[in-house]
């Protein structure tokens, strides 16, 4: 079989293609974006007729995937950890409806918040939904687990979560492919009530799910992804979950630690799995990428038993991702002599690109709002969040997708005037429209600035869901037509734009200003491709 050099994300995508997946649905979000990107640009996937779509948000993506599963086909939906918050409703409820064709929720967590507003451990979400979770420790396992995930999903008729983290998602390594499987044929669920969660049905379905947990545990006990290797030094037993296993092994060049090691990559992990290592070792060190899930379980509420070390007792920092150095210190290895970073080195935070339209929008807004004072602009998730930093310092919030409009409304209800929301076009269609409807219904005095750069820029320029339809949407929601203003954020239009902004800040009602100019990155990319085509012909 051919070996490919793939990112963890790409390994999952290639595995989907090889495992007979019929569709992938997602909203872009670092570090999960490259899964769907890969399928979308794969010639093979295209020839196999695999549907690969960017959706309005993670909830619509997950529900579409559930619909494809209903029709009997294999599908996956991919998201970053905070995307699962958005898709939590279909995720939790699909555990009850169960599936028909295999269904995978691929969730990419971002410990250390490289490109996120929080760090979550999605294993807790999987546990909450009572579903099996697979957590690969390397790119090959990421590939293999897609096959195993579809098998588990079709065997027990439940969705399965694959949980990865940034370092696996964005790290490249050799992956050996398996023999390809055919896609499923269209096939309706056997029971017409399977997907109808009326209370009477849901109670039965919930009991069925509860009764299946034992089988999920049995699967975890016999899973090749969970393994135990004994060691002669019983002073410590080590439990390593997912990626943490690599950091453990990195510290033993012969890959042979003297301590007993339990590797956990499939959940729910039953008590029997831990019994041996717990009973035969004097203490336990738990290495987990994320929250102390296994550590908490082993420790128990009163921590009255064996010495359990990990993130809870400070052996490992409570926050942030693991690395081989942190694990080396937890194992008691002496510190390496290291050269410190010279004091003259200063941080280099990311910044808006040269020529970015947001720069002109924020310069205009800063001038227009100056007379009212600071603290009146709510913002959202995207490149424009960088306007919180100097030299702009224009915005005062960034919480979750769509929260700019609703928070501005809440502040306006409290009496703040003007209250401004700044939101990107893709974030607006993701979760901003419903908030705008609330504001219209209440005649709230808010000014919404939609930064329409015609793309989902931060994640690399995926298509925007409502290209050229933003005005129509605002009108449809009920914003008065003469308070839907469009401006082009350009240096030479600064005075004119500032004037528009000033007028709308004074208006006692909902107004929307669409600042429309294409993202400089996608524009440059388009121009390069155009030039390439020209030189070809």
């Amino acid at each position, binding site marked *: 079989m051919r070996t490919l*050099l793939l*990112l963890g994300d790409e390994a999952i995508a290639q595995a989907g293609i090889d495992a007979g997946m019929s569709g992938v649905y997602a909203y872009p979000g*670092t*570090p999960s*974006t*490259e899964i769907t990107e890969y399928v979308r640009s794969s010639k093979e996937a295209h020839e196999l007729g695999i549907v690969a779509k960017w959706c309005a948000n993670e909830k619509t993506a997950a529900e579409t995937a559930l619909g494809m599963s209903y029709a009997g086909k294999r599908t996956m939906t991919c998201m970053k950890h905070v995307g699962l918050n958005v898709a939590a409703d279909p995720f939790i409820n699909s555990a009850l409806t169960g599936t028909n064709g295999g269904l995978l929720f691929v969730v990419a967590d971002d410990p250390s918040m*490289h*490109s996120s507003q929080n760090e979550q451990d999605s294993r807790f979400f999987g546990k909450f939904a009572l579903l099996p979770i697979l957590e690969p420790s390397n790119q090959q396992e990421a590939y293999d687990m897609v096959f195993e995930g579809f098998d588990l999903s079709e065997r027990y008729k439940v969705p399965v979560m694959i949980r990865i983290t940034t*370092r*696996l998602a*964005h*790290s*490249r*390594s*050799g992956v050996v492919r398996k023999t390809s499987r055919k896609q499923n044929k269209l096939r309706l669920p056997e029971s017409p009530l399977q997907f109808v969660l009326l209370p009477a049905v849901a109670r039965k379905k919930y009991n069925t799910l509860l009764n299946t947990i034992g089988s999920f545990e049995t699967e975890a006990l016999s899973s090749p992804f969970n393994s135990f290797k004994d060691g002669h030094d019983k002073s410590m037993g080590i439990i390593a979950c997912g*990626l943490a296993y*690599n*950091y453990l*092994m*990195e*510290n033993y060049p012969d*890959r042979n630690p003297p301590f007993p090691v339990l590797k956990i990559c499939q959940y729910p992990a039953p008590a029997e799995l831990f019994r041996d290592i717990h009973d035969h070792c004097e203490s336990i060190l738990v290495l987990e990428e994320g929250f102390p899930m296994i550590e908490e379980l082993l420790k128990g509420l009163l921590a009255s038993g064996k010495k359990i070390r990990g993130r809870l007792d400070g052996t490992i920092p409570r926050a942030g991702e693991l*690395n*081989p*150095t942190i694990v*080396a210190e937890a194992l008691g290895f002496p510190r*390496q*002599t*290291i*050269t*410190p*970073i*010279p004091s*003259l*080195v*200063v*941080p*280099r*935070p*990311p*910044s*808006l*690109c040269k020529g970015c339209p947001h720069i002109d929008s924020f310069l205009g807004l800063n001038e227009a709002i100056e007379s009212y004072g600071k603290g009146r602009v709510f913002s959202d998730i995207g*490149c424009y969040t*960088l306007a919180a930093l100097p030299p702009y310092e224009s915005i005062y919030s960034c919480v979750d997708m769509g929260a700019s409009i609703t928070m501005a409304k809440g502040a306006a209800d409290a009496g703040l005037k003007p209250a401004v929301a700044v939101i990107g076009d893709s974030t607006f269609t993701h979760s901003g429209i419903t908030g705008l409807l609330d504001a219209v219904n209440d005649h709230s005095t808010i000014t919404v600035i939609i930064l329409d750069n015609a793309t989902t820029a*931060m*994640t*690399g320029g995926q298509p925007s869901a409502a290209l050229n339809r933003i005005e129509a949407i605002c009108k449809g929601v009920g914003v008065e037509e003469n308070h839907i203003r469009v401006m082009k954020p350009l240096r030479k239009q600064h005075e004119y734009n500032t004037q528009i902004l000033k007028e709308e800040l004074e208006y006692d009602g909902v107004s929307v200003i669409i600042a429309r100019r294409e993202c400089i990155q996608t524009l440059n990319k388009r121009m390069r491709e155009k030039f390439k085509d020209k030189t070809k012909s």
Partner: protein
Amino acid sequence: MKKDIILAGVGGQGILSIAAIIGYAAIESGLYLKQAEVHGMSQRGGDVQSHLRLSSEPIASDLIPYGKADLIISVEPMESLRYLPYLSQTGWLVTNSKPFVNMTNYPNPDDIMKELQQIPNSIVLDAEEIATEAGSIKSANMVILGAASPFLDIAYDNIEKAIHAVFGKKGEDVVAINLVALQSGRNIAEQSIKRP
């Protein structure tokens, strides 16, 4: 054989193309490889790094431990210093000397040079200038890669082959310029190694 390399630069400077070429050459040479990249927010002009690990044996961690890197390859001088805690006591640092200034509090470039001079095994070169002589300022990356090539333990042929493979689509001219840039960087490194 085992080489742990930190690639450093600023988002948009193209450190990933250096990684792609070393990666291709490593696979050609039958080595195992792991390469952790930075995607997302930092790519907007922030500091970016990539951990590139090559070995004749399977590799465990995607990240290099502190104090264990054999090589830092940087396309920006201040960024090369940011990753010093990763460099082993016997490791080499190869960096461009030309600052990339996209911030108001960038330190005095002379002070950066003084810091670099204190590192025992380092090669500091003006990659832009050498690349311009080679035919295109865009090949500065390949000058840096050439200067790092003596420390890679990968046959020089395989690196040239990788340049053909990665830049081939862009035409023979581009390949030729990049090969000259690579060789220029390598020559400078070889002279530096001879007279420490």
